[in-house]
């Protein structure tokens, strides 16, 4: 993996800006960094690429050597030892499962309907092992990894001294540092539909994050309801804003999967997070509703 594109512009002498893109986690991570020297920006992008690559290896379920792949292969038969970071991530996932009434579940993709209402795996803190419940259980951290990575990368960028930046993971997970150099926030419009420039709703990020869940850009239904084991077929988009990119990612997935009647109860447990539901018609007109 390498930095796919790096551009540095000094067209605005007051605010030089760097743009970089990296292919990662089956999508693309884009960064806009303001007021940073070119060499430092380039070095930061390379460090971000290294971090992302390392996290992708850790959380991928497709790479033979990845730790998660080993868990999926052997975890149904025996307890499998994992390193600190994966163990912590699995602890977090289980906490989020309980904190979303089971609508966020990293085992939701496996052949085990109803798994959302009970744990799909057991962690042994003393032995640092994980054991899957049932041979059919698989862990898929796709709904967690982007948010987790974005959270870590946001910290790395902020720690490097950057005070104004946007990190965009596949357009669906965005983290902002500071604000736009010519405004009080970073304006982020969620599109009404694919290929249309019209905005369904504008969100304002300032040292905060945003995550969008719904049908894929091609209309694919790729989110599972952990309770039923079925794909969620719902003609709406859920956007969650808040401090942490990881929590936003988890909540947007859970709230899209959850029925409307459960959403308020779930989001109310997370102080400082807000959810918005967008229902857009074919011609671009959208109804926007806050979950409250």
């Amino acid at each position, binding site marked *: 993996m390498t930095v796919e594109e790096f551009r540095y512009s000094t067209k*605005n002498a007051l605010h030089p800006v760097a743009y970089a893109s990296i292919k990662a986690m089956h999508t693309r991570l884009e960064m806009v960094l303001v007021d940073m020297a070119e060499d430092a920006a380039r070095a930061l992008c390379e460090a971000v690429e290294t971090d992302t690559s390392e996290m992708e290896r850790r959380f991928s379920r497709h790479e033979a050597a990845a730790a998660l792949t080993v868990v999926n292969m052997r975890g149904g038969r025996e307890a499998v030892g994992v390193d600190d970071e994966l163990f912590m991530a699995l602890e977090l996932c289980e906490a989020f499962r309980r904190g979303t009434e089971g609508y966020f579940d990293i085992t939701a993709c496996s052949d085990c309907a109803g798994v959302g209402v009970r744990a799909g795996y057991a962690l042994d803190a003393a032995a640092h092992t994980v054991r899957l419940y049932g041979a059919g259980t698989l862990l898929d951290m796709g709904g967690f990894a982007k948010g987790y990575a974005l959270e870590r990368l946001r910290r790395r960028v902020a720690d490097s001294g950057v005070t104004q930046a946007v990190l965009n993971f*596949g357009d669906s997970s965005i983290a902002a540092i500071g604000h736009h150099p*010519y405004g009080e926030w970073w304006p982020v419009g969620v599109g009404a539909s694919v290929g249309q420039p019209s905005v369904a709703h504008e969100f304002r990020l300032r040292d905060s994050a945003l995550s969008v869940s719904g049908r894929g850009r091609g209309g694919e239904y790729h989110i599972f309801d952990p309770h039923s084991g079925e794909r969620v077929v719902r003609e709406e988009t859920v956007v969650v804003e808040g401090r942490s990119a990881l929590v936003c990612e988890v909540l947007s997935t859970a709230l899209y999967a959850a029925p409307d009647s459960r959403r308020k109860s779930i989001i109310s447990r997370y102080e400082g997070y807000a959810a918005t539901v967008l229902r857009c018609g074919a011609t671009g007109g959208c109804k926007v509703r806050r979950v409250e």
Partner: protein
Amino acid sequence: MDRKEFLKDCGRMGLAGWVLSIFPWLESCSDRTRQEVQGEKARIGIIGTGSRGLFHIQHLLQMPQVEVTALCDDYTPHLEDAAQYYPSAKLYSDYRRLLEDRNVDGVIIATPLYLHAPMTLDAMEAGKRVFCEKAMAYSQEDCLRVYNRRKELGAVLFIGQQRLFDPKYIKAMSMIHEGRIGDVVGVRNYWYRNNNWRRDVPSPELERRINWRLYSEYSRGLMTELACHQLQNGSWSIGMLPEQVMGSGHLVHWTKEDKRDVFDTVSAIFTYPNGVNMTFESIISNKHFGMGEQILGSQGTIDLVSGLIYSDEPMPKGSGIHQLVTQIENGIMSNSVFAGTSWAAETSPLAPGLPIMPNVTVNTGESTIGAEADGSKEIIEAFANAVITGRQPEKILEESYYASQFALLADRAMHENRILTLDDRFKVPYEPIRNRA
């Protein structure tokens, strides 16, 4: 674009105008046509009541606008089987007598291949609206004869290429034409089974009548019985016709127990004017890989059989976030639209593909009679509606014609061991199905 329209089967499709503009033949099963035929009856006669004829009957029984008034088969047990479903239908052993029946407006022909052309021609001459199973005819010459005569008579003629009416194929082709997988760079088709392709024969003198598929006197084997369906994927996705075809066919396995003389193993390559190849392979002594139809694009792949899309590229580079950079360069701030749901198709070759629509029904290709939810019901309903309206759907006949022509051309290429092109005399006007400039 309202993709929701694709989520329902044809009978409930409520097709939007843009869909009809791309796939005009679907007008025959649109809500508008359904309303038009409400209260009307399509009086249908079925010629050939063997396994495929009975398969159609199961669908016809579900259609209130259909009245089956006549049945015909020269093999009495088959005729009696069908008569159980329609006790009041008039029974015939000679299809020409059925064609004289004034209570029949349209006929469904489900007979051996060598009878398709003569029966279709006779039925059109008798003023009937016609649905005939694929392939269109036993020979290239007969295909042309049927095509031209239909044009002269202005008759309604459907050929049983049911994928044209299968919602998941319609959705997939629409996505391909939108450029979702980039440029089409290859088309792979295969159909593997492991059975002798035989039907039980009550007495030896009926062998060739019942097992007509196995004898070249009546059938062109795997190319007309199976390939015909899949070859259509090439022209439908690429939007042009093959320039040449080469192939190899042999009788490899099923040689000991019978005297069949059609190939049980075939492989063909069709090359399009832009250099893209479409392959077809069929073996009926190994079923491991089943049936497959894959459109390979420069940015992704669509598996037509499973209704799954796979991506080679993560996502287009975002113009929205580039706007942010431009704004900063120009010292301004305005709204940047770039957030949305994820570009979800994963790029890992090991990743499961994403369904192009919910509730995709996968046809394994194992059945030698027909599969559920593969467009068979929809095409028959569309035909029943056309029997009432008298309207020939656009483009459907040309797609069917060329699927048959190229299946037959490939069969010739195998027998002659040559690379062949379609003779100019067999070319009829062809307008590709495209919605992309």
